């Protein structure tokens, strides 16, 4: 089942007298349960594509359909509600709230939904267990390593069990070993049925994905399936 469908997506930025065409007509379809990486050099438009997918960046033209809903036709705050229910975000710099513990950071998306305190606590602890950090629930972000912070960010993204997980350079600030652990985690989540769309500049991360999409100058330049990725890695 196609979960995400993008058609003729364009995004232009106006900078002074200059118009920058970040996306110049992207067509893409992502199936439910798929693990897709988006590769490309700086300025290729991959981060713009992810922000448009995340419902935070209105496209200049084209459509984004998610779970059968035309994302940018949603009125007003319904887009925020859509994000709250359907999307989980993992950021490059983790973006954990420094004054909240790991557990509270994970509970953050639950702050705006009606749910009993005990249920919120249970959901957050389950998410922390899934990323292997149940024992560090009461630590503040600055008491955690980079890899642990990334895993807290992942737990925060999955705590509401959203159908789609969007990740922006999740290993960008991590060493090789920790990067592998985080990618293993994403792979495991995907094996459990989680759809993952990840922007990365690291070709090694593509080995964990079902499909890798290469953007160049705002258009899809190449698509590789898992088998091809494995051959390439070998």
């Amino acid at each position: 089942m196609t979960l995400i469908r993008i058609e003729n997506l364009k995004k232009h930025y106006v900078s002074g007298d200059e118009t920058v065409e970040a996306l110049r007509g992207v067509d893409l379809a992502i199936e439910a349960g798929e693990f897709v990486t988006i590769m490309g050099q700086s300025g290729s438009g991959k981060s713009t594509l992810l922000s448009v997918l995340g419902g935070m960046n209105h496209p200049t033209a084209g459509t984004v359909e998610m779970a059968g809903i035309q994302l940018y036709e949603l009125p007003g705050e319904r887009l925020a509600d859509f994000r709250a229910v359907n999307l989980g975000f993992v950021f490059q710099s983790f973006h954990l709230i420094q004054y909240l513990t790991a557990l509270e950071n994970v509970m953050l998306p639950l702050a705006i939904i009606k749910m009993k305190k005990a249920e919120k606590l249970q959901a957050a602890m389950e998410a922390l267990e899934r990323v292997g950090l149940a024992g560090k629930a009461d630590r503040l972000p600055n008491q955690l390593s980079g890899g642990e912070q990334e895993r807290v960010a992942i737990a925060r993204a999955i705590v509401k069990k959203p159908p789609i997980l969007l990740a922006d350079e999740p290993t960008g600030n991590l060493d090789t070993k920790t990067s592998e652990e985080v990618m293993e985690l994403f792979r495991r989540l995907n094996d459990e049925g989680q759809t993952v769309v990840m922007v990365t500049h690291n070709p090694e991360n593509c080995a964990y994905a079902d499909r890798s999409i290469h953007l160049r100058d705002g258009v899809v330049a190449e698509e590789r399936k898992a088998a091809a990725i494995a051959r390439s890695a070998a």
Partner: protein
Amino acid sequence: MKLHTISINNLRRRKAKMAFLTIGLMVGIATIVTLVTLTTSMSSDIGKKMDEFGANILIMPQSNDLSMSYGGISLGRVTFDQREIRQEDLVRITTIKNSKNVLAVSPKVLGGVRLGGKDALLVGVDFDSELKMKQWWRVFGEVPKKEGEVLLGSTAADSAHLTPGDTVQVAGKPFTVAGVLEQTGSQDDSLVFMPLAGAQKLLGKEGRITLVEVAALCSGCPIGDMVVQIAEKLPEAKVTAIQQVVESRLKALDHFRRFAYAVAGVVIFIGSLIVFVTMMGSVTERTTEIGVFRAIGFRRGHIMRIILLEAALVSLLAGVLGYAAGMGGAKLALPFMAESKDAALVWDTTVMAGSIALSLIVGMLASLYPALHASRMDPTEALRAL
């Protein structure tokens, strides 16, 4: 985890900034509380004085008089058509609308007499009312309780060499000196006081009154209205308010009150600017955080609630501390500002509730734009990484 958890934890983390914010607002509230409490306490002090010290309404018979002058030389005033007040009419004073503000009604009859061979002014009074009105009187001996007894002013007693227990001839009749007044520094020092009925009989003015002094509880009463109300009840009398001194004090206090409110306005404006600038700084500092909130599905309203809740908590604290500090300041300043040394500080729950409410209103209003600004942040711009 609820939205208020985020607000409270953020306040805990940014202790220095929030302390600065609290102090900024607290100073404004404390200034207002100090000034309001000072003016209220000073008004109360003056009002208390009015209540305690003497008459503030004078009732005299109507009379027509002319100012006489000839060749540029003033010959004084000539009174004709002198009328009188009947004692039985005085009961009407108790029927005026503001009768609850009447502390004491003291009728008097006056007349010239010979006291031990010297001329003196005899005043017949109702001692119960007179003592209620002149609480500063100190009597050596006793206050006259029956006919045949007099109370002498200190000068009158000295000049006739009389002390309590002596007998003295008043208008040719023997009277016992029941008591002598301690020196008051007023006209009372040279007067001879005796019970009203006895004086009326001695002066041949039974049932008639020369003048009436009324003490009104005037810390809050409309004395002007009371004068009009009494004049309506006693059309044959001339009713005047003796309040020039008090009025001038109240006028000065009114000027101080206006000045105080102007100062308070400026201080609270500066306080609100501090809140505004600090909250804007806080919002800018938290740009990424707000971007995260928006990215994970927080509505604009949620962001506003977080910011305004923080403002409300800080304002509430500033209001409570500001009230406490303001009352402390007023307590310290009152002895230097009030006329009497024992002026009491007025603890008014309205001031307490008002100062907390004002702090909340100012804090929330000053934070409204920063909250709106935060809620309107573009999550992509806020996060940049995406």
